[in-house]
């Protein structure tokens, strides 16, 4: 993608990274809470 095609809509608009980060974050929180129980 060239610099000319960079727009507010597609800047830092990742396809799969968000899902990995959210998934792992929620999983880490859940696993931590399960250890307390």
């Amino acid at each position: 993608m060239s610099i000319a095609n960079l727009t507010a809509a597609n800047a830092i608009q990742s396809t799969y990274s968000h899902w990995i980060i959210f998934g792992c974050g929620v999983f880490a929180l859940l696993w931590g809470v399960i250890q307390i129980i």
Partner: protein
Amino acid sequence: MPWSDEACLQTMKDVNGFIVEGADTFLKKEYTYLTYFCIVFAVVLVCAVDMPWAENEAGVQLLFPWTTFAFLIGAFTSMLCGYIGMKVATTANVKTTYLCASQDINAGFDVAFKGGQVLGFVLVGLSLLVLEILILSYKPFVVTEKNDKHTEEGGKIVQQQVRVLFEYISGYGLGGSTVALFGRVGGGIYTKAADVGADLAGKVTHGLQEDSPLNPGTIADNVGDNVGDIAGMGADLFGSLAESTCAALVVSATSLEMVNHTDAIYFPLVITATGVIVSFITQWFAKLDLKVDQKLFY
């Protein structure tokens, strides 16, 4: 006295109760003063860094102190991590001691290891989620150049706005580190003072043994260990994680190639997220298989 004895159990619970109460009181007091400091520092940040009344580097006037807000969120999350770690540790301590003495050292290890896992996983989970939510919620307000005509100049403005966005986000790491500094140093000074005081008063003056339950300074020493080495370390770990991730984001946002390939921008966060999975897999291999003569405890 056998460890299964009711009186012995009660003593253990009483001592733990004193430690929990002391650690709670210390942390509440410390966090109260830290909150005052953060508010004062936030005012300094608004005046010196954010300056919402002026245009930012990208030539846009944003009537909101973005860096300061990220700083306050980072400070609060850091305090929360420290508090959760301290609460879990004070509960796990007494269980570990009891299991090591009454059953075997392997059972105690399991409880201690699980107690540590709570802080580790919750800390990383909170750090990742809050940072990601901050980035996504800042983006519509900071990256405003639509560049509908797909010009090179417009693209450069977008890139500059992305860089400014991550500079705002770096306040998150600053907040985490500020709390970590006070948590680590405050707890460390307290525990050292209690340790020296307990030694001088108990061992030297009254001839008591090291860590004798008859010495009130021992409780203060244990409280210091919990608030300094656990709550302080939790905040410290959070600060290091948040700061290093934010620094990587700010540096990568200066590169045109990185901004053009947006998945590359998130690489530092994805690395941390992958660490969660690796830690989850490897924790199953952490087992202790020691044979210890229980009579040694009596």
